[in-house]
């Protein structure tokens, strides 16, 4: 179907095969290594609190309704039970899983992060392209002594967010990155 402007699909596949083979045989097959630093271990507790906050209020509301509305009682208890089980499971699993995945690194010329759990994402922003660096601390993060930093480039989609850093480390990073990026000429587009 369609017209293939690349010409013979077989040739293209061959080019691909050759390229992949040379990459492997030449010993230069590479992959992204994980960024060097883990986030602060307290992030696990912070994420746990977040998970709890995301389902406990709903369960409470359902429980109250179950006590007030006799007609729908068993359905309300049932849904409260299901949400509790799912919520507890994600509270136990997700924060630890995230902690194993979330990593970050700042070198002389780039900021590098890995986030996610099942779906993972690696982001790299060259230092020369960084436009702004902010740190943010929500009330919940603050109570765990944590902060997030956001590194934005001129791209609407290139922002790197590193969550769960020790708040003093975050402040230092912001300071350091701001100094480097201000020294860079141009508008980083």
């Amino acid at each position: 179907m369609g017209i293939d402007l690349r010409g013979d699909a077989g040739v293209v596949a061959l080019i691909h095969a050759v390229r992949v083979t040379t990459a492997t045989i030449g010993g230069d097959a590479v992959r992204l290594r994980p960024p060097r630093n883990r986030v602060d271990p307290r992030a696990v507790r912070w994420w746990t609190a977040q998970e709890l906050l995301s389902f406990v209020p709903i369960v409470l509301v359902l429980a109250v309704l179950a006590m007030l509305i006799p007609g729908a009682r068993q359905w309300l208890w049932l849904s409260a039970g299901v949400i509790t089980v799912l919520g507890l499971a994600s509270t136990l699993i997700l924060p630890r899983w995230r902690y194993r995945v979330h990593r970050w690194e700042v070198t002389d010329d780039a900021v590098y992060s890995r986030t996610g759990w099942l779906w993972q994402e690696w982001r790299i922003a060259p230092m020369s392209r960084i436009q702004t660096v902010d740190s943010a601390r929500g009330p919940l993060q603050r109570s765990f002594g944590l902060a997030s930093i956001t590194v934005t480039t001129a791209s609407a989609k290139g922002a790197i967010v590193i969550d769960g850093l020790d708040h003093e480390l975050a402040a230092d990073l912001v300071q350091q990155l701001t100094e480097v990026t201000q020294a860079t000429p141009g508008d980083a587009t």
Partner: protein
Amino acid sequence: MTASVKSTQDTQWHPLDRRSLGVTAVLVGGALIGAGIPILIGMTRDDKPVGIVLAFGVPGVVLAVALAVLGDYLRWKKFSYRITGDRVESRTGILHRKHLSVHRDRIRSVDVTANPIYRAFGVAKVKIGTGQHGESDDGQVTLDPISRERADELRATLLDRTPTTATPTAVPTSDDAIATLDWKWIRYAPLSVWPVLLGAAAIGVVFKVADWFGAQDTVLHRAWEFIRDLPLWQAILLLVVVVLGVGLICTLGLYVEMWSNYRLEREPGPTLRLQRGFLTKRSVSLEERRLRGIEVVEPLGARFVGAARLEAVATGLAKKAEDEKVASRMLLPEAPLEVAHAVAADVLREQVAPTETVRLIAHPAAARGRRLRWALAGVAAVVVVLVVLGLTVTPVLLHIAWISAIVLTPPAVLAARDAYRNLGHGLSGDYAVTRHGVLARRTVALRRNGIIGWTVRQTPFQRRAGLITLAATTAAVKGAYEFLDMDAHEGVAFADDALPDVLSQFLEPVD
């Protein structure tokens, strides 16, 4: 040249063009009269005397127009702008004063639009865009309206970075146009979904108008009477022919309105200027420095006949062109592929277009497997819904279920295979090229120095299949351009090749 530069460097505050009031009066009056006629007809049908209806209606329209003009007068009175040596500023707001100031170095695009009413009054609307990331309306200065001449002058001078002391650049003559419209290209217009959509819409409008005149039932009745006596296949054929015929006429009309007077040229700056439009004339000027690459877009229909359109990959172009159906980043309407490539090369100032010379590398077979599974899952979802409904509601749906399984599977598989075949990436000179898409196959050539970061994503399924989706982030409007389902190792090596010294420090050999 010297005179115009001088006149844009004064420090005086200017008002908008006074003819704005006339535009408002015609616009509001026209809209009210247009809306009023059906109401009038409706009321007279209910045996209300025409005189009384008019006695209330006419003063109402006059009052509304007067209020609108008064409102526009206040806006006009409170709006002023000035263009100094290094800034464009506007002051506006009746209660809440707002002062906007844009550095001239930051100006990336100047759009001039004039619809027929504006043109009758000799004015135009000018938008001066800064192309800053996260740009809301606040980031751009809109002069609505100023005189046609003033608009042309601003367009020519605001993006001109030539030092004022230098000798003026030669004014481009007609030979300098990068592209002008070839009316033969109109043949590509119907090869899209537009005839169907516009045809259906036009039929809807007919019924709506008939409704105003209270004749909807009559029209339906007549149509039914006519169709009833025909055999079923003839009736269906007739309906299809009528809808497509009307749709075709509307599509061609729309094409004429959008692409008449199309002209893409270079102006001093250097700036790319695109002009087009039959009734509503538009001019989009884009600073060439903002160009990050080019996109060759082949909608399915056009692809079959070897045609493609071009879109600019640039910063500072409207994300959603508010009053346009077509994004303002369109540089060339569907044209023969060799024309598209030639224009692309010219726009990028290259000998040959990277989209043409690039040797695209196919993606791993696992990417085809993913696409086939998506396609079959889509068919399965339809069939399952039909089976469930068939078991619970009516058994007829069970037959529709197996029929749709048979009918839908081949095109789904073909589309999946096509989607896989269309995947590709490669480097060509200063450009990184990616291609994907079925309904619209997009080949994007991205200037390598316009890439300002990388994002690598991997779903659990991709991890098992050894695939990644790579995205090059840019300051251009779309933010990121994706390389779908690449081989995980080859993908990061490619990113490292495309933009040296960024990724290499984060790479490790595979053991």
